């Protein structure tokens, strides 16, 4: 212990204290403060950059998801549109067919009606002609009968033949 105290030099203690305090001051001012600030700045910069990259990645993922969603929506829309179009086409065709059928039926009906009325008119006309002919024949027959019985019979037969040809 005595030797320990003997080794202790108060002069050196004072010199070391002063020099070391000066060294701390100078080092803090000229070295540690700028170094630590620079290191902190750098670390924060790296952290920010990493965060930004992470954010960008997330955003990218979101965008991709959005894109996929849009694509799918578009696809679905196209599907429905195609389906609608097909349905409309089928319906139009069906409608057209139906309409045509109806029209045709109507035309046929009209035609039939016309035919029937024409037929009736023709029949009526024939009837009238037959009546006229009959009257004429009868007239002629009556006329001939008055002169010649045989001739009158021939005449009737000829007249009937003519009527048949008509």
């Amino acid at each position, binding site marked *: 212990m005595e030797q320990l105290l003997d080794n*202790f030099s108060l*002069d050196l*203690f004072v*010199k070391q*204290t002063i*020099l070391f305090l000066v060294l701390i001051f100078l080092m803090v001012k*000229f*070295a540690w403060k700028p170094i630590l600030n620079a290191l902190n700045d750098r670390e924060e910069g790296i952290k920010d950059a990493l965060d930004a990259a992470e954010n960008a990645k997330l955003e990218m993922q979101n965008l991709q998801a959005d894109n996929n969603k849009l694509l799918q929506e578009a696809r679905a829309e196209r599907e429905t549109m195609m389906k609608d179009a097909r349905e409309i086409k089928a319906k139009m065709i069906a409608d057209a067919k139906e309409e045509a059928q109806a029209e045709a039926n109507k035309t046929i009906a009209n035609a039939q009606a016309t035919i029937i009325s024409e037929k009736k008119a023709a029949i009526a006309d024939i009837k009238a002609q037959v009546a006229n002919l009959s009257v004429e024949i009868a007239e002629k027959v009556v006329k001939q009968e008055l002169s010649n019985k045989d001739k009158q019979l021939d005449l009737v037969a000829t007249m009937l033949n003519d009527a048949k040809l008509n």
Partner: protein
Amino acid sequence: MKAVLKTIAYLSLILLVSFSASAKDEAKGEKGDPVNTSEEINDYILHHVKDSHDFHLFDYFSDGEKHAVGFPLPVMLWGENGFSAFMSSAFHHDDEGTVVVEKGGSNFVKYHGKIYELNANATTVSFDEEKHPTNASAPFDLSITKSVFGIILIGLLMLLWFGGLARQYKKKAVPTGFGRILEPLVLYVRDEIAKPNIGPKYRKFTGYLMTVFFFIWILNLMGLTPFGFNVTGQLAVTAALALITLVVYLFSSNRHFWSHQLWMPGVPYILRPLLAVIELAGTLIIKPFSLMVRLFANITAGHIVVMSLIAIGMTMQDQMSVVGSTILSFLLSLFITLIEVLVAFLQAYIFTMLSALFIGMAVEEPEHH
């Protein structure tokens, strides 16, 4: 690399000393011959671990004369007649108080590493039985001693290195060259010592902790070079460091810390005054004292062990022949020097870590239950 260089240097020192020792075998133990007896080696080692007023590198001998190689350092004294300054070479390497230097009306002698100012009418110094001078007083010594030289040198080196690193950050985010070695060390002290031990308020104390860490570490490593620095093995230096740590944690301590120091919650009331005494003793005396002694003792012990192992090359020559003792001392000192490289880092780490821990205890905020 450093260890290898140093070991080579030690080896050459061993060879130099052992060859000159064998050449001058007949002059063993005489004054002015190489250091080769156990007593001389003991003295030499004890002299080395102390501070000194000049920078002594090695001695060589020619014509039976001892020539010291080194360089003088400025001596600055504040004594009876005010301030006086001269170079330490004025003492001509005398350490026994025989050479008297007259300067500014005062007479100075150097005895066992200390400079004394002779009383007005005295011309030579005289000692009592305990080797304290009787007719001389000790002036206040402001000299640039070997330790002060080391402190200033390392201070400048740190300013140069870390100031350079700080300047690099102005231009670029990642340092180049030597800064690449320094940056991880800075980050190590911040992330492994300051942050975990102090907590969220670490930033305020990181400057002090880093200065302490690099100061101690670099000086420890310097002590392992053959230049003979033993700065962190000076009790005065470690005392100053420990005292600064004490001041730092006392001045940053908060209410929570003192309430736990003086009136420990959660223990019986009758024990609280006793605990307060123990806690106060721990905080004010034991903690700084342990910081001071741990660093001092580890570094000084390392120096003494390394030098003792080198001395095997001289003291065991009779038993093992010159070659045998040199090889043995080389191997042992190589081994212990490598360990000392580790110790140099470890002690810097422990001092800084404990300082951070003590500061952390002082600034800790109460936990919210």
